[in-house]
């Protein structure tokens, strides 16, 4: 029993995580005919809280309550995993990435996010503000423009062999590749 708990506390392997995520697709279909997709929740929250008489937000978001329950579950699960299923070991990071980031003054490798970039304090630095606020804006704007995110297109859409989702997934990856390799090294210099 002790060993099971200890192995649950170590970081989970990609095939375990991938299998669980993949099984969410049939689980949602079977328990309620729901297609997996998380970004619509951003729209539902806008529709519920700030509809502002915009046509795009005029629909009955209450029909989509199941998805808001789903994200509430994500928050609870993340809380449980962080507080009851984690060990104190630092996250293992590729050495090349470590040295690149160290050169840019990012040295907090203890947690899932480097505190030099992602914290309330770093909001006052140019790079912290750009990463969190501009980055977050692009996520919210892009996902709605694309009509789906990594879950709705890359997982659900590809599971159903929809070619538009393949186009979207390739573009997600291309955008991420361009940002990480060509734009981020520039942004990260502005401490």
């Amino acid at each position, binding site marked *: 029993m002790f060993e099971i708990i200890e192995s649950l506390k170590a970081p989970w392997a990609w095939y375990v995580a991938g299998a669980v995520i993949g099984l969410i697709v049939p689980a949602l279909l079977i328990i309620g005919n729901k297609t997996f997709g998380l970004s619509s929740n951003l729209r539902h929250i806008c529709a519920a809280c700030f509809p502002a008489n915009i046509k795009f937000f005029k629909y009955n978001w209450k029909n989509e309550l*199941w998805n808001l329950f789903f994200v509430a579950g994500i928050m609870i699960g993340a809380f449980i995993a962080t507080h009851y299923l984690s060990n104190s070991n630092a996250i293992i990071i590729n050495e090349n990435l470590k040295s690149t980031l160290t050169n840019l003054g990012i040295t907090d490798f203890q947690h899932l996010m*480097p505190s030099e970039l*992602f*914290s309330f304090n770093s909001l006052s630095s140019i790079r912290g503000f750009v990463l969190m606020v501009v980055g*977050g804006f692009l996520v919210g704007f892009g996902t709605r423009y694309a009509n789906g995110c990594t879950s709705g297109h890359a997982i659900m859409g*590809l599971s159903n062999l929809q070619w538009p989702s393949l186009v*979207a*997934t390739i573009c997600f990856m291309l955008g991420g590749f361009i940002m990480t390799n060509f734009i981020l090294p520039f942004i990260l210099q502005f401490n």
Partner: protein
Amino acid sequence: MSNHTQPMNDIKLDETSACINHSEKKESIFSLVKYAFIGMLFGIVFVKAEIISWFRIQEMFKFQSFHMFGVIGTAVTVGIISVAIIKKYNIKTIQGEKIIIVPKPFTKGQIYGSLLFGLGWAMTGACPGPIFAQIGSGLMSGFVILASALLGTWTYGFFQEKLPH
């Protein structure tokens, strides 16, 4: 790739991204708790497989680690097999309804939007699911990213009819 014909052309864009695929049956608040349970499992995986880590996303886009490719690749494989089984054996929902997956129609917005999304994904290290997991995990930056993402979605809604699709 799609084995569906696309009967969607006459459906306006704002009707395609939400509210088209839910069960006919109304569910009580109590019944909705089952979605929270599945979400909870997902949230645990997000944290335990470090999918919400900015470092993991950086490693992926720098091709320095196989981890995220493995996660996404396995998830898609399991998803494809599951959906194929559901279709082949005509598996019904637990309420006895036929399972319907309405395909998303292609628009050029998927190219523009997906590229913008990819930029934001690499900056924040978070797509919409992990944003909520970051908050649950106690990362305060998650609130900032969520607020910005909501503003982005709202801005899209505001300009939707003027944007090329």
